[in-house]
């Protein structure tokens, strides 16, 4: 049992770590990118992906000012 808990804790720390915003944001970035790519908007996806990554990082830094 402790190995299962340890395994789960490892992946929780790996993915969520100090900021749940980054975990949710990171996944959301690729979901939005996938929607754009599948609709054929490749140029928009190329710009949106890095822009959303920067936005996610900015959001995670809110409250630390």
């Amino acid at each position, binding site marked *: 049992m402790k190995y299962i808990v340890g395994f789960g804790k*490892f992946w929780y*720390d*790996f*993915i969520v*770590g*100090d*900021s749940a915003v*980054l*975990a949710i*944001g*990171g*996944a959301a*970035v*690729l979901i939005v*990118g*996938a929607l*754009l*790519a*599948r609709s054929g908007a*490749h*140029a928009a*996806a*190329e710009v949106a*992906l*890095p822009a959303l*990554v*920067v936005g*996610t*990082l*900015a959001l*995670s*830094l809110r409250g*630390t*000012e």
Partner: protein
Amino acid sequence: MTASNFFIVLAAFLASAVEAVEALTIVLAVGLTNGWRTSLLGVAAASLALAVVVIALGPALVQIVPIEGLQTLIGVLLLIFGLQWVRKAILRATGRKALHDEALIFAREVEELKRGPGVGPDLDWTGFVVSFKGVFLEGLEVAFIVLTFGANRDGAFALSALGAVLAFVVVTAVGAVVHRPLTRVPENTIKFVVGVMLVAFGTFWGGEGIGVEWTLGDWMIPLLAAIYGAVAFAFVTTLKRGTPTATAAGSIA
């Protein structure tokens, strides 16, 4: 060697070298931040897993392994993990987080001492996973390259494999030369740069996995790293203006 044979070796060499450099970047990053033992164990485990997959599947590899799915999974994990590192590096550089967690380091040392002499430090699983994933994905891409170029005509498989092996030897030699000078760079600087690179790789691979066609191809990786580096540096500059404490007045450099 005929001209067409030479070009098969050259094409496989160049294509494999690009993938090998990407893997080397991650191996160096993990080695510098999580220790060389962790990083090289990740390389060894990934090489073993790759060997098993390639030997078991052979030429059927190209049809069976869902490379886009792997790219998406590895991309999103690297993206999230890299963002966590960049965030921590920014907070450390602006004094919002201590440069070293002395209590944690002390507790770890005590734990190691309790295990007695002759027992090495624990394997850093986080670093191991990052190193493993980077080498496994890139290695798989090299296997795809070798099989694709090798499928062109009879005898081409050995030539494309030769190109890939030459690329591996050259890139490994470059890694062995550059790893030592890199260890002299301050810890937070390394973590900052490594975080930025992981985010760049994560965006690129994740993007490829979900079907984004990067106009610049692999050149998008350094461009993304430059953009993220500049943005992170701008965050540091902005946050430094309102630094709350001076307890860890560290900077990126």
